[in-house]
């Protein structure tokens, strides 16, 4: 099986889906000749032409809104937000409009659109090229929010997102783009949106994570293994729908849970996971559910020292695990 980086897996999914279905097209800033600033769409304009790979003006609200309109008319647009930090001007079109179209018309229209965006930091992106934005969209009924951690998941989930009949926010971690490699089968496969996956089995504690942090979590689990503790790692893969079953099954087995994500702690996805565990596994808990997350500051500062202070690293996750296990 070929080994790909995460961004190569994204590119392959885009290319294969555009080949498969003529209603799939890509729009966004610099997605054409430039192939996107991270090169996710590299080569697509040569293969599919300018009609299906549209370089838009710099205007996120209309990128989302126009994609939405085309989706309602039967196309399958993939709108790229160049960085997740720049998704806010499109908030109304995504949260106010796309998320409600099906519900508000009793199924009269629907929005098979994907909004792809590189998110996250630890790439010296500073306050405005590093943000995690998933909690805002995970709170929004009508949206799906997918965050793949591995190239395999990225390809299968992106294909599923493109074929999904509802709006999907597809978040790709910038630092994972080239640092994370993995086996990816050639050709077509999809993965179900809304199914978490146990990425490492363990008995003493569960860590629920996703995205780049999943990899830091696996490193921490490895460290803890060397210290004699067996840690199970659940990769949510999508934060809406959120696979409560898989989380609860794991916690009922290990009786301890930590949630690790890069997004700010307060009101992050970890809060919802903690509440779900509270509601579904209260009687099984030997310790309070803990959270290891990004600092509660507005995204990630630029200086490397400050950036590191922000990040939930493998070391910090390991430390949190030790605290959890010692409770």
């Amino acid at each position: 099986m070929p080994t790909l980086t995460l961004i190569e897996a994204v590119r392959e999914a885009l290319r294969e889906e555009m080949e498969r279905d003529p209603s799939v097209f890509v729009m966004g800033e610099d997605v054409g000749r430039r192939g996107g600033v991270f090169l996710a769409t590299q080569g697509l304009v040569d293969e599919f032409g300018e009609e299906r790979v549209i370089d838009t003006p710099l205007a996120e609200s209309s990128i989302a809104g126009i994609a939405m309109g085309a989706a309602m008319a039967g196309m399958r647009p993939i709108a790229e937000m160049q960085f997740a930090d720049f998704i806010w001007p499109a908030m109304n079109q995504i949260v106010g409009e796309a998320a409600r179209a099906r519900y508000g018309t009793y199924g009269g229209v629907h929005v098979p659109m994907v909004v792809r965006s590189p998110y996250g930091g630890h790439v010296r992106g500073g306050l405005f090229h590093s943000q995690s934005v998933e909690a805002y969209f995970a709170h929004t009924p009508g949206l799906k929010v997918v965050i793949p951690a591995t190239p395999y998941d990225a390809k299968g989930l992106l294909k599923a997102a493109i074929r999904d009949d509802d709006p999907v926010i597809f978040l790709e971690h910038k630092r994972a783009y080239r640092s994370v490699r993995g086996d990816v089968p050639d050709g077509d496969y999809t993965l179900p949106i809304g199914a978490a996956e146990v990425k490492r089995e363990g008995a003493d504690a569960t860590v629920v994570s996703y995205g780049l942090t999943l990899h830091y979590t696996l490193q921490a689990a490895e460290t803890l293994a060397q210290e004699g503790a067996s840690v199970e790692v659940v990769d949510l893969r999508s934060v809406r729908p959120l696979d409560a079953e898989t989380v609860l099954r794991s916690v009922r087995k290990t009786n301890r849970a930590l949630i690790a994500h890069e997004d700010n702690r307060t009101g992050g996805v970890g809060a919802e996971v903690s509440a779900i565990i509270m509601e579904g596994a209260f009687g099984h808990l030997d310790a309070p559910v803990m959270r290891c997350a990004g600092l509660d500051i507005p995204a990630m500062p630029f200086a490397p020292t400050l950036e590191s202070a922000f990040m939930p690293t493998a070391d910090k996750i390991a430390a949190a695990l030790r605290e959890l296990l010692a409770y």
Partner: protein
Amino acid sequence: MQQAHPAPAGIEPLGPEDLLDLYAAMVRVRALDERVWILNRQGKAAIVASCQGHEAAQLGSVWALRKHAAAHFCFTYYRDMGVCVAQGLTMREVMLGFLAKEGEPISRARQFPLHGADVGRGFMNLSNVVGSHVPEAVGWALAAKLRREPTVTAVYLGDGAASQGDIHESMNFASVHNLPVLFLVENNGYAISVPLHKQMAIDRVAERAAAYGMPGVTVDGTDVAAAYAATAQAVQRAAGGGGPSLVEFDVERYLPHTSDDDDSTYRSRDEVEEGKKRDPLAKLQQRLLAEGVLTPERNDELRKAARREVDEATDAAEAAPYPGAADVLDHLYAADGR
């Protein structure tokens, strides 16, 4: 027959039959609009935004779309009852919406009256967030272009909506991609209470069209022939691959913004009375009577028939139950469809 507003080059003026058709449609819409306002005052309709004063613009433009495009689709806003009815929404269906009753076809009473979608009948009004539908309409037009379909998309918006950033982005994108879309501005001089001069430093929204390299024109939107002709020209242009246009209808809103509004604090009664003199229905009636296209007897019949239709629609809607809540979670995602 005298032609008060000569049609633009290449546009055949409306004949007597079309004008009579349009008149009948305006009579129906007016009767319906007046009734829902009354139902609001009776505590039965929670909210009403009247289209009185805008009918000629709404109906004239739909007639132009019908006659000059192989297919068309309308993105409407809350004040566009005329457009919805012209696209085929029945009075009964409209009434079910105002009373939020079971059987309402375009949102199943989940939304305000006239909000929802009816793709089959060619219109949608997804949301109350003013201006948000404009990029969506441009996306609809983009899809038509990509699929080589002959649809002309029309998006209706108010003067207030024109201040939104989304409108700038939409008009810009539409012109860069030469899309078959019409921006139809119903300029009634107010965004709720905010008069035009507090909204913009120019006189006409149409002056903005040049900023996107597209044609823009302002016409008397209380004159159905003028509204028809200006729209028809824009439709022809779009249908022929000429790209987007902006057509601005100068209209009057002589009622309060909605049934929730009280306009007495911000509009003089004189101004309102002046506005009423431009009533599109009265103007068309006068013209057709004067031209002998309409007889007083036919006029009476039309008005009576409309009232009867409104009565029946009201009775049916009043008799209908509220929707049950068992399906309140349905149609959130595809998998939740029932």
